[in-house]
């Protein structure tokens, strides 16, 4: 297990929290210290954002999305909370940036050139339906699980526990799994996720 398996907690900024944010020098050092694998993971994730959110057509390429996340972090527009690893921070920054572009595009598509939304029109648009923030129907969740994990129910069930916020040790205790067995399943899960992200 590496440091990435620590639970991620998003803590809202508050008075006295300033020390938790990386300074300009710390951010630069962290970005320049990204390893080859970190870069590859970030680009893989950026590709999946661009594909799944259909950004690659004249909006943003994966390389630009990564560059934007670096730039916004350096400029402190996306502040890096040092309690979160830099790579996970960059993942969330890309999620946020690509989500913003999607929302912007939806707004533009809803109100074409020259047609300003009236106050009545502004009300129901945008809706959460069809967005990433929308709750998934049970069938959709099942379909997605099947897409990623196929018939591997063991992997899917552990993934669902992670989805519910349980961490590795808690899952092992909850379903009485040895650490070795858990790690073997976790490896299978990561393999299936990597394949899913590359293909989708």
């Amino acid at each position, binding site marked *: 297990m590496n440091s990435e398996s620590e639970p991620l907690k998003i803590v809202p900024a508050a008075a006295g929290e300033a020390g938790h944010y990386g300074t300009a020098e710390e951010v630069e050092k962290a970005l320049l210290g990204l390893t080859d*694998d970190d870069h590859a*993971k970030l*680009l893989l994730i950026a590709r999946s954002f661009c594909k799944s959110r259909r950004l690659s057509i004249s909006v943003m390429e994966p390389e630009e999305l990564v560059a934007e996340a670096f*730039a916004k972090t350096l400029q402190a527009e996306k502040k890096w909370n040092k309690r979160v690893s830099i790579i996970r921070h960059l993942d969330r920054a890309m999620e946020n940036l690509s989500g913003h572009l999607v929302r912007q*595009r939806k707004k533009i598509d809803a109100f074409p050139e020259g047609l300003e939304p009236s106050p009545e029109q502004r009300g129901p648009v945008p809706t959460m339906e069809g967005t990433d923030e929308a*709750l998934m129907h049970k069938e959709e969740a099942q379909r997605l699980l099947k897409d990623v994990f196929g018939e591997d*129910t063991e992997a899917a069930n552990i993934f*669902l526990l992670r989805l519910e916020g349980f961490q590795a040790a808690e899952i092992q205790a909850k379903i009485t799994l040895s650490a070795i067995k858990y790690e073997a399943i976790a490896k299978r899960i990561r393999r299936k996720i990597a394949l899913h992200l590359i293909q989708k």
Partner: protein
Amino acid sequence: MNQRTDKAITREHFHRTMRDLLLEASPEEFRELAREAGLNVDELAKTGKTIVERVVQQNRRSATQPENVVVLHKGLNTLLLMLRRRDGLDESKLAERADVDEVEIRRIESEAGYIPHPRTIFKLEKQFGLPSGVLAKLSGAVKHNSPVLEEKALAFAASAQSIGRLTRAERQLLNEFIKFLTEKG
């Protein structure tokens, strides 16, 4: 399948959990996964490193630029982007029509500290039918001593969207800014 999917799940949460798990892969494991999936980690890493080095250099340059130059460049970035949107041109089409480098267009639009070549500015002014010197004022090629220009450039940059066709309000904003640059800037 007996997975429990009764609880409320969002797509965002689902995908986040997938990515979090992927990020947990050790370097060795990730290389193995990538190999299986036909990904070239070294190639991706090379691209990533080039990007990070470029962005860090830009950021250092911007940090040492006088504040007013950065402000004007923000106005230039936005102006170029809006002109492109007005005419329905993507970067490559604009590059082709104006006979300039596409990379340079991307850099002008995304880097506040980037100083474009005078030829590029000249060609772009011609392409968009702008009076001579309108873009040059914002590029820093023409010296000025007008705090009003900086104020206008900053306000213009702050009020624009970044994608899609121009709305009526944006078109009006664009026309007013060009008029200001032509007459007073």
